[in-house]
């Protein structure tokens, strides 16, 4: 499933890299601890977090993630959005909680990462 479909199904707001939504999503990962994300998330994953700091873009870029969902109505820092635009990392926002977003992603058939 590509990001565009996920954006539509979950009514997410696209805040950066709107041109990069064709990419297939290989799975999902959720955590707010960036060191855990670095250890576990895999290329092509969609990462669900409530962090809005520019560091999230660096982690997503390092791991070649498909994109990020920033939850609970958090407004990502302007620096986060401009960096994400430069790096081509889609930033999607939602008022939903991380728990709900993950539940809906599972319902769409996006698997978790276990290794």
């Amino acid at each position, binding site marked *: 499933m590509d990001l565009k479909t996920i954006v539509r199904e979950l009514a997410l707001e696209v805040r950066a890299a709107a041109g990069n939504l064709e990419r297939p999503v290989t799975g999902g990962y959720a955590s707010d*601890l*960036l*060191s*855990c994300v*670095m250890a576990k998330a895999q290329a092509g994953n969609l990462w669900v977090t409530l962090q809005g*700091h*520019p*560091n999230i*873009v*660096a*982690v997503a*870029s*390092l791991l070649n993630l498909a994109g990020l969902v920033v939850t609970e109505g958090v407004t990502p820092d302007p620096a986060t959005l401009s*960096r994400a635009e430069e790096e081509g990392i889609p930033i999607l926002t939602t008022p939903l909680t991380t728990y709900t977003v993950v539940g809906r992603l599972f319902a769409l058939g996006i698997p978790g990462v276990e290794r």
Partner: protein
Amino acid sequence: MRELSLHILDALQNSLEAGANRVELEIEEDPLADRLHITIRDNGRGMSAEQLARAFDPFYTTRKTRHVGLGLPLFKAAAQRCNGDVTLTSQEGRGTTLEATFQYSHIDRAPLGDMARTLLAFLLAGRSDLAYRHRRGGREFAFDTAEIRTALGGLPFSHPEVRRWLEEFIAEGEASLEEPMR
């Protein structure tokens, strides 16, 4: 990171990469003032004003293998989340000092973690000496590996018996900070 010791180890590794041969690490836990202070002072090659200005930018790294460096940005974000901060001061050719502060009781402050393992990893990773001072409340554990090296008369820290002794020495010192006050 789940433990602050991992941030400390990362910063200590920066000191080694900067060519330091002496590093001072001070940890002060002050529950009364509700502050945790961590200071790392090295005598490495230091940083230029331009390097210093970008040290907390995750898209800046001296590393050649990838284009992002997250060590310092993550340390700073962890401190800021806990009403603290991480700051750097540096003089080229003289060294760099990192100061981190946290609100001690902040609910998001990670525990300090396993300092004995962290210090041992640092001592075995490079040839730098370490002056260590850890205070908690009224207690203190401190040592200087320059003195330990002299006492060892040339035996390296990686020697199995030295290594075992160091491990126990540091673990006991750290544990002594935990003992209930009599």
